[in-house]
């Protein structure tokens, strides 16, 4: 799903934590959002997901530039995901139940996802007994279950081991390429951004510093702030 952002601002009291003049995400693209802690990355995703309201500015969804948030078609996986107080598989099934799927169809979809994400053994396990990486995977499976048109991921591999990270990256690429799902992913892992993102945007102090093809932005950035960031320097 295509997204267009115009003059979005988010302020808490006196402090402006997000201030983006313009940002477009094309249908079917995979955008990486990078930037230091507190840059406003999560805030941006929360606003796109419709769980926080911008203080100013407009967001448009889809080709016909709708201003209503299409809650049924977008989803987000949080930095620290919240799992429902039940089993792993019921968590994955919940969005499908909401959408009135039949039990057989739900079961088939849960089976697919748990196989793909290596969660088969954990299907019946209570959510609160899972390890944090497992929780992250269940939250991801739950988000993917209903095949959203826009997938927002807030550091989805932060707690995940290297091999599984590789798997998840392949999965995101696959979903993006085969199902045409638009993905925006926040990551602190620059090589991950290089591996999977077509475009990258760098946020700093709530501002969009630079945006462009990942191959360019992560290798020959124009902006000095981006240069400093990818060289691992502290930004002020």
């Amino acid at each position, binding site marked *: 799903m295509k997204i267009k952002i115009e003059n979005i601002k988010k302020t808490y009291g006196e402090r402006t934590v997000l201030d983006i003049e313009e940002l477009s995400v094309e249908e079917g693209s995979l955008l990486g959002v990078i930037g230091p802690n507190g840059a406003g990355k999560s805030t941006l995703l929360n606003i796109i997901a419709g*769980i926080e309201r911008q203080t100013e500015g407009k967001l448009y969804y889809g080709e016909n530039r709708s201003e209503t948030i299409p809650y049924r078609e*977008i*989803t987000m996986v949080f930095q620290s995901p919240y799992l429902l107080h039940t089993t792993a598989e019921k968590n994955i099934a919940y969005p499908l139940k909401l959408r009135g799927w039949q039990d057989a169809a739900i079961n088939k979809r849960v089976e697919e996802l748990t196989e793909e994400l290596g969660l088969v053994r954990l299907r019946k396990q209570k959510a609160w007994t899972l390890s944090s990486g497992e929780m992250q995977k269940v939250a991801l499976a739950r988000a993917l279950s209903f095949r959203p048109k826009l997938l927002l991921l807030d550091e989805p591999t932060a707690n995940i081991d290297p091999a599984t990270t590789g798997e998840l990256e392949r999965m995101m690429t696959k979903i993006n390429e085969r199902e045409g799902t638009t993905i925006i992913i926040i990551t602190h892992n620059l090589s991950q951004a290089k591996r999977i993102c077509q475009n990258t945007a760098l946020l700093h102090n709530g501002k969009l510093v630079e945006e462009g093809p990942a191959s360019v932005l992560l290798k020959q950035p124009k902006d000095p702030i981006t240069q400093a960031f990818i060289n691992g320097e502290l930004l002020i």
Partner: protein
Amino acid sequence: MQEIARGLQEAIKMLLSFDPEIYEIVGLSLRVSLSSVIISTCLGVPIGVLLGLYDFPGKRALIRTIYTLMSLPPVIAGLVVFLFIMRKGPLGFMGLSFTPTAMIVAQVCLVTPIITGLTYNIVKDKADRVRRLALTLGAGRRESVKLLIYELRVGILAAIVTGFGRAISEVGAVMLVGGNIVGKTRVMTTYIAQLQRMGNYDRAIAVGLVLLLIAFTINAILYNIQEKNA
């Protein structure tokens, strides 16, 4: 020590002999406390959920009041209800004094703040995260509230159990409005108090044990439900 041992023997004898007086008293205790907990749940859970979800002017003061009422001494609840329903009181025409209905009313006054306050705490704690999740998964308004209640079921159940514990074990309120009348308003706690005054320790201990056993059983049942649904 001897008294306690004899009390135990007496309790077992009483239970096995199906002493009708005891069963009547136990029955009334359960009827009064369960009724008041059901009514308090119907009032306290929705109010607690609404307080946890919505902000409005005066909310802070209201929450403080509820917290204070959570530790309301039973005799005070009893006294207030008594003053309202006594023959010359504003609700005297209803003829409620010294009836089980009056006891239920007094216990509702005690238990509702407890269930409301505890529910409010749980909702406040989790509501925002559940709301965000519900939105990202495409749940509508009604579905979000349903999800919230589903998520909080264990905590709400615990609040109800706490309320029941309070109701079944208090003596002040039921004594003042019920009056411990034989065959009419006598419940376990008021009976124990009376037996103690009369020096009938065996029977007092016996009834005390029955009370403990009931409280234990009901808590165990609810604990089990919590474990299974947890």
